[in-house]
């Protein structure tokens, strides 16, 4: 089992996890992603497509109509990237492939597909801690 510590904050409340996404040059780009239990698919800012290694899914580019409660449409490009999660203690997962959507977004959102669905999520807001457990 691999336990990845979350970064948990109050006011505004947010739980984040560090993701290292494989780049075209073979290195990794590190960014804190917001753990979003309202997101089925993880979201990456489209600007990162310039540097990240990815392969397009068969679906490729499409419009997401009436997305979320806000019911607004946005363009997404569905792709697969390789990444691993890491925390400040040095714990890290194996690298694995994740289906993501590139979109006009500012933040990295971590959703269920291929990431949260693999893990047990612990979130302790009174103590401002949390972690993701990935069964070994």
């Amino acid at each position, binding site marked *: 089992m691999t336990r990845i510590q979350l*970064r948990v*904050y109050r006011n*505004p409340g*947010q739980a*984040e996890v*560090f993701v*290292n996404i494989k*780049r075209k*040059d*073979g*290195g*990794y*780009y*590190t*960014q*804190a992603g917001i753990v979003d239990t*309202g997101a089925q698919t993880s979201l990456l*800012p489209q*600007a*990162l497509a*310039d*540097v990240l290694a990815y392969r397009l899914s068969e679906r490729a580019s499409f419009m997401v109509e009436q997305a*979320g*409660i*806000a*019911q607004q449409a946005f363009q997404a490009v569905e792709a697969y990237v390789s990444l*691993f999660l*890491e*925390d*400040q203690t040095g714990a*890290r997962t194996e*690298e694995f492939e994740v289906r993501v959507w590139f979109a006009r977004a*500012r*933040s990295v959102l971590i959703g269920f597909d291929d990431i949260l669905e693999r893990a047990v999520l612990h979130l302790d807001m009174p103590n401002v801690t949390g972690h993701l457990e990935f069964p070994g």
Partner: protein
Amino acid sequence: MDTPRIRMSHPYGQTPPNIFSDHDWVRHHEKELLEKYGECSILVYNEQVVGTGDSLQAAIEDAERNLPPEVGEITPIHEWLGYRHPFLRALPGHFEVPDPNHE
């Protein structure tokens, strides 16, 4: 994305240690940073803002341009500074709520 002195990538298992502490620093100073820089992309290295811009690339170019000559390679973090909208998921539009004291 990288420039001669701004490195935004690393090999597997060699995540620069400042990544974690700088991220916490941004989160804990978000309000002051927003007041000073407004909504923008921001690069932070060792708890110092080294570049800002309206995109990640613009922030990197700003940092490369403004770093003192004696500074060598650095591994900053990138964050988007933005005001939080706690009710972002609510539908736009107007509606009435009955006054519970006049029912």
